[in-house]
């Protein structure tokens, strides 16, 4: 069973000619089939955790370990991590002019699967996945994320999640900027992947709203660059009612 283990992760970023520590000792274990929600206020380091796991060059790991099934993730390049089974659904997916969605998806699936998918079954697979996400077939001929609405970008991220079938999916604020209809469609996509029981999910969010659609097994409160409290789904209800104030104050004094 695939397991992502994060131990005492410290991460810095260069900003304004200074080195700033953003993650200050993150410990977390996510197993295949589990869904963990990471919730926290803006600036708590949630996205830094997501991008650090994916290997974004902006972030420097200063100490700690990350392993996927015992393999050292931090030693891997960005593409190696993806091929090892890590997937990051980004909060701000990047435009790639001149590269069509269909070309991009096929290139990516070829890289992840280790061989080019058979054309006929692949076309069908993409078409069906797009239908499930209420995406028009013309979408495949558009350039990656170019001129996409906020909702289209997120659907496109979840489309990739469905097609690439990672072991660990990190969803970075996938709910931000979505109206209720789009949120439902996107959540249903995530749930289809979860229901296979073959993916571990790390759901990073600021709001509890998405947790009505995607039920987490574990909820962690993130503040000041680390997890300050962990619990079950009931912790989300507490956050819904009380907000983050108690944690941000506590985090400052801790």
């Amino acid at each position, binding site marked *: 069973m695939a397991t992502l283990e994060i131990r005492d992760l410290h991460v810095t970023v260069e900003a304004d000619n200074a080195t700033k520590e953003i993650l200050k000792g993150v410990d977390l274990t996510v197993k295949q089939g589990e869904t963990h929600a990471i919730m926290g206020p803006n600036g708590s380091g949630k996205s830094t955790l997501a991008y650090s796991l994916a*290997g974004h060059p902006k972030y420097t790991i200063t100490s700690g370990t990350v392993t996927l099934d015992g393999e050292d993730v931090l030693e891997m390049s960005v593409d190696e991590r993806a091929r090892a089974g890590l*997937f990051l659904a980004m909060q701000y997916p990047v435009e790639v002019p001149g590269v069509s969605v269909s070309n991009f998806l096929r290139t990516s699936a070829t890289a992840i699967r280790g061989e080019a998918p058979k054309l006929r079954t692949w076309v069908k697979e993409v078409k069906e996945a797009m239908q499930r996400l209420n995406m028009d077939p013309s979408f495949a001929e558009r350039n990656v994320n170019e001129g996409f609405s906020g909702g289209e970008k997120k659907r496109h991220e979840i489309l*990739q999640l469905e097609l690439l079938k990672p072991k660990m999916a990190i969803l970075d604020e996938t709910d931000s900027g979505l109206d209720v209809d789009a949120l439902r469609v996107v959540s249903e996509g995530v749930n289809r992947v979860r229901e296979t029981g073959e993916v571990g999910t790390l759901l990073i969010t600021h709001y509890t709203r998405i947790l009505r659609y995607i039920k987490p097994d574990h909820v962690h409160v993130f503040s000041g660059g680390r997890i300050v409290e962990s619990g079950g789904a009931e912790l989300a209800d507490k956050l819904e009612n009380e907000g983050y104030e108690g944690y941000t104050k506590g985090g400052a004094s801790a």
Partner: protein
Amino acid sequence: MAEAQNIPVGSTTAGSIAVAAESTVATRMSAPPSFDVADFPVPHGREEEWRFTPLERLRGLHDGTAVANGDGVKVDVQAPQGVTVEAVGRDDARLGKAGTPADRVAAQAYSAFEKASVVTVPKETVLTEPIRISVHGEGGTAFGHQVIELGAFAEAVVVIDHTGDAVLAANVDYVLGDGAKLTVVSVQDWDDKAVHVAQHNALIGRDASFKSVVVTFGGDVVRLHPRVQYAGPGGEAELFGLYFTDQGQHQEHRLLVDHNVPHCKSNVVYKGALQGDDAHAVWIGDVLIEAKAEGTDTYEMNRNLVLTDGARVDSVPNLEIETGEIVGAGHASATGRFDDEQLFYLMARGIPEHEARRLVVRGFFAELVQQIGLPDIEERLIAKIEEELEAAVA
């Protein structure tokens, strides 16, 4: 490209344009156009038209010291039936009709060539096969003059291939009769040491359309100067360019579209990628809308993708408008670095770095390549772009 700057200037519609008091496009040249090299002083490098060009690498083309030597360059013309191919002397009336040399090297070429090549497509002849002109350098120095003339309502595609090693200065005239359609693809696929300076003159007849595709990959110095004028209303010019400037190369494209006649169109799109130390691309886009050219519709754009440190782009669009009674006029120039966020996004989907780079660069050129409209040329260009990228990765 997150860091790209977009500078649209003067993009507007009829009636709302500030009118320039006087054109300076012509006067920015250090001497008026002339067929005689003696009318141009030897450039020193500070002139507006030479300030980007490394004169010391022109192998004497600019100062009269370059001398033609025998079989330096072999020209082979393959034309389908119905097309006339002639070698003529300089007294032939068909030479120089499309334009006059605008700088010293073009005038030097005109003053020094021995025989000109004239390719004629008779009126109303519609070719189904392209005319292929191979210009192959065999290490020598040469001065050339090529004329391609289409009679009224004739249609043709011309592919001019430049390969090998040479020092070549040339003028190429395109004369389009009324209603004619000409597509010219000029590929500069020179060896690394070649020096190629040429002026392209297009004279577009009434209701004629001219499509030029300039593709520059090779050479030490390539400096091309495509110029367009109209002989009657209703003419259309599409000028597409694609360049891939490698380490140490100087590739310069200077364009002039002179809207000297009412109700003509022009659309200029040049895109370039650069990689390696001292890769230098220059793009000058001059568009002049003369006072009498009412109803003009023009747009020009230059985009550059800088793949590595150490490369340099000079991109200068220049639009001069002497009448407000036009349909549209605009220009844009943008130079962006290779976007690391695009690379991260693609790699985060498992795509290895070199393949991700290839996708991005292919994507950058794709839109332009698709506008060429000649599938075999499109495929060849994509293959060539991949080859350039492979060389960079290696």
